[in-house]
């Protein structure tokens, strides 16, 4: 499958197309995780920049040591969950500002990830990964993302999930109706970071490597997915919001693939985080700019 603009110049070839979907799905997981902290719990959690490589590191090390990839992925999720719990613990128990607490965990994780891997990167070439026995890695990945989507949609619509959502919206009312807001923050960050670690573990197994610096910009890329999704799907409700995160991530990766491919713009893969930041800044600034212009 090749898309053409002018005869002979492909703007996106098949490999790039599949690559964009693949990364879109992985960032769909991160998008849903970021939605959980930023939107549901109103907690700006930067831990994800550390828990994404953490997931990749834990899964990779277990896999090269001959462990079952499913077990490795599961333990990676647990490790990510613990990282999130630690950030929430710093905030809830010791009242450290949420943003700072998450930066502290993220910074510590950089060293921890190096320790876990024992070196800056690990190759998984020839190792037994989750995707080895799959008919199609892409379909398996899509299946996992859809499963997470269904489970999260259900969870957030349960009695407990309603409490979780209320706790991020209005803590006073939540407490008045018997919700332990502190516990809810622990659950939310734990769950969110275990999903990010899952994304990291899946990335490592798909691309056959883990790298200690792969986490830089995870939060901004995840946030970009959430924001793009929100502008595309405006319908109310948790299910639509979660679906928007996945769709937003896929479209975002497509836009990036296009931008990187377009000749004449001169962008390359290293510009990814610049583009991500620009998108997030634009979505934050443009509505205000519009208001100011309308007022004149």
């Amino acid at each position, binding site marked *: 499958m090749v898309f053409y603009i002018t005869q002979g110049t492909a703007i996106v070839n098949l490999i790039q197309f599949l690559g964009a979907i693949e990364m879109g799905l992985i960032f769909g997981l991160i998008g849903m995780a970021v939605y959980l902290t930023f939107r549901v719990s109103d907690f700006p959690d930067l831990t994800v920049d550390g828990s994404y490589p953490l997931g990749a590191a834990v899964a990779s090390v277990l896999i090269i040591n001959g462990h079952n990839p499913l077990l490795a992925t599961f333990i990676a999720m647990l490790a990510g969950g613990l990282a999130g719990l630690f950030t929430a613990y710093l905030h809830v128990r010791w009242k450290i500002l949420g943003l700072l607490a998450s930066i502290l965990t993220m910074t510590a994780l950089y060293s921890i990830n190096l320790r876990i891997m024992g070196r800056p990167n690990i190759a998984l070439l020839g190792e037994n990964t989750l995707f080895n026995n799959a008919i199609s890695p892409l379909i398996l990945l899509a299946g996992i993302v859809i499963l997470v989507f269904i489970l999260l949609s259900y969870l957030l619509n349960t009695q407990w999930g309603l409490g979780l959502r209320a706790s991020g919206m209005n803590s006073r009312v939540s407490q008045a109706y*018997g919700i332990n807001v502190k516990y809810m923050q622990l659950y939310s960050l734990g769950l969110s970071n275990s999903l990010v670690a899952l994304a990291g573990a899946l990335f490592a197994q798909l691309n056959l490597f883990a790298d200690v610096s792969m986490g830089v910009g995870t939060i901004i890329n995840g946030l970009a997915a959430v924001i793009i999704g929100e502008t595309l799907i405006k319908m109310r409700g948790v299910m639509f919001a979660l679906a928007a995160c996945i769709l937003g991530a896929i479209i975002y990766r497509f836009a990036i693939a296009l931008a990187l491919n377009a000749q004449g713009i001169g962008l390359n893969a290293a510009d990814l985080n610049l583009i991500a930041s620009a998108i997030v800044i634009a979505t934050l600034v443009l509505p205000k700019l519009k208001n100011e212009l309308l007022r004149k």
Partner: protein
Amino acid sequence: MIQLQNISVIFGKNTPLETTVVHNLSLNIQKKEFVTIIGGNGAGKSTLLNTIAGDIIPQNGYILIDNINVTKLPTHKRAQFVSRVFQDPLQGTCAHFTIEENLLLAQQRGEIRSLRLAHQRELIANFQHRLAELNLGLENRLNSQMGMLSGGQRQAVSLVMATLKAPKILLLDEHTAALDPKMAETIMMLTNRIIQEEKITTLMITHSMHQALDFGSRTLLLQQGKIIKDLPADQRKVLTAQDLLEFFG
């Protein structure tokens, strides 16, 4: 029955700004009693309510609700006994939830929240019934977002939320103060009707002398963290707003 025994609340203890907001206060409220509280700014009315709700843990004394000592229970654990309507209509509900979601949240006050879907068909009929009693047409707007409603409508929903499951005690902190006079009256009438129908033990703070005397069965006058007058129904009957004012000297 609600018992407060020798309650003291001190803000900024052991600092130069130390202030005793509630002073060795004792109070018994019988079941089904509707008590109104009046007092000037800084009299300790809101602090007293917040202490009963669990937002503030007193330095001295204890609180019993039906003989259970709740003095040290945090707000979210005390929610099984206590419900409240806040002064600010924005504070009493979740603005981004629909009316239905707010009521679903309130339905489980103080209960364990399970992994069952929150939306249960058998609950909805009861929500509609309760909303219909308000005569504000909200029973057909269960899916409207709370933030789209007017202050008065929100306060009305807040009231339904607080009384959806009858509490051991209902705390009202000037819950009509932020509304226009007409809406304030409507909400006060609704409040009174619900309290009478459900026979809810209630503690209501008000700034209005008339409200304090017109509603409820007992009035407390608070000054500098102490109860300076405790007026039962028969004594209250003959009093006017002017008389109340004179008590404060």
